[in-house]
């Protein structure tokens, strides 16, 4: 497991008990609830690819299984087979500000800066907003 992720793992599983760390590409898979009526499912698997430079470099985007659909508009996603995740979609989600600058701020101590749990909170919030 990526050493920075290992430092945070206890915190991650305390909030996402079904979280699982897998390899090739290294990623964390877990499940989250979705707002009723907003999506084709009430709950979905989510995968976050862990970049090799984590935590200095933050994750980008998240993956959901092919088949998840948003009610009323298409999911802003691309087929993820080319990144080694066939059967998944890579959702366009980026932690950037109005000027396009990254807002990810990492520190040596994961509790003081941006971290995986914080990133997942942003992902869940993005899904709840209908991916806008």
């Amino acid at each position, binding site marked *: 497991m990526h050493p920075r992720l290992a430092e945070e793992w206890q915190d991650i599983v305390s909030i996402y008990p079904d979280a699982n760390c897998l390899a090739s590409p290294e990623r964390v898979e877990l499940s989250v609830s979705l707002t009723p009526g907003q999506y084709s499912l009430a709950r979905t698997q989510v995968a976050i690819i862990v970049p090799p*430079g984590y935590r*200095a470099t933050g994750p980008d985007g998240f993956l959901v299984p092919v088949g998840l659909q948003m009610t009323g508009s298409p999911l802003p996603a691309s087929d993820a087979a080319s990144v080694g995740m066939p059967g998944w979609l890579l959702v366009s989600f980026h932690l950037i500000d109005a000027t396009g600058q*990254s807002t*990810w701020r*990492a520190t*040596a101590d994961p509790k*003081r800066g941006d971290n995986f749990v914080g990133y997942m909170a942003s992902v869940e919030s993005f899904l709840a907003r209908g991916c806008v």
Partner: protein
Amino acid sequence: MELRIPALQLAQLTDQLLESSPDEGAAFLSVRPSGGDLVLRSARVFDRTELEDGEYGELALSERAQIEELGRIKRGGHGLIEVHTHPLSGRTVQFSSFDDEQLRKFVRYIGHKLPGRSFGALVLSAEGYDGRTWTGEAFEKLTLRPVGEKVLLPKWAVPSGSSAIHPRFDRQVRALGHEGQNSVSALRVGVVGLGGTGSQVVQQLAHLGVREFVVIDPDRVDQTNLPRLAGATWWDVLLHRKKSFVARRQVRRVRHNVKVSVAGNLRSEAALRALTGVDLIVGSVDNDGARLILAELAAAHFIPYLDIGVGIDREESQPEIGGRVAFSVPGGPCLACADELDFAEAAEDLESPAQRTIRMQRGYARDRTVEPALMPLNTVLVGLAMVEILAYFTGVRPVAPFFRYDLVLNRIRIQNVTRSDDCAVCGPALGMGDDHGIERYVLSEA
């Protein structure tokens, strides 16, 4: 076996331990393996309230302090070097017969508390040390190797006397002294990036007399490189030669018997492994992804890492032309502490081509523009960097680790940079050695 420790940290450790002189001092060092040796992760000096009088009048660590600190070391996954002082021993400091007896008991205790981890012992005085490490069956010698600029090294760490120096270095010896030339001639240097700046780095280091090179760059020479690539020729373009070939040829033309190892891509196991064995890394790369990898590797293994950056921006109303030298010395601030790493750029540099394609399709990827470049500008920055390397290894003056050169104003601005305790790069990496996991950057196709 060697224990690498930043010179500044060793000086602080020794000062703290000898503060209570003539009473003995004690500390536990947390250590990690690094290519067959050890690196220091952290030091815990015990204060007088944590020491108590032992059965035979010696000073012993209180049980509570010992248990607490061993617990912390165990949770951190570290090994242990226990340290105590013989303040009055001078240069001939060595373990006493009482120390020997206690060590034999302690090693059995540590074998239960920290199974499978490194264990050793040091005894220090103001003028020297003695060290041992446990192999599992016996104690063998542990050598303390302070790493840092020469002016900070303790006297006993500076090699005395001089080896014979080749007459070709006559003029250089008159500038650097015998000791200085010997220090340079003993160096193994990793040069990452062999373009406009990297080719000149190799050229200058070869002339200075560096012993051994590891050169890393997967690119081949093309015609647009010829105005800047030191040593490159028009037939290298025709023959589609690699830049590493040109670098090796350059070195061998100056001194035919210098070892030059070539590792094509930084993100290969061979390259990363080779870099952990050098005395200095010089980065002449054009992307922050590579800089992030080098910064982590250097911090983990206590290898000094000097990065050269050059930039020409003519689009502003005031053109900006210049560069910077960023010299990360062991235990000192890294490129991230100096705000010389753009993590968003590094993330893009390190992502897979497939990820980049998807982000470009979605309009979220930067354009990779071709940057302007000029050989004289590269030469100035490389020359300035070489002077800092000489300062570091010969002690001719203290190192100026971070500075910027402005070609338009024709001036150098020294930057005052301190190490950030919360740095996301050197904080987690510092002194982690082989356990830092730098191999996670390896690309299977590299």
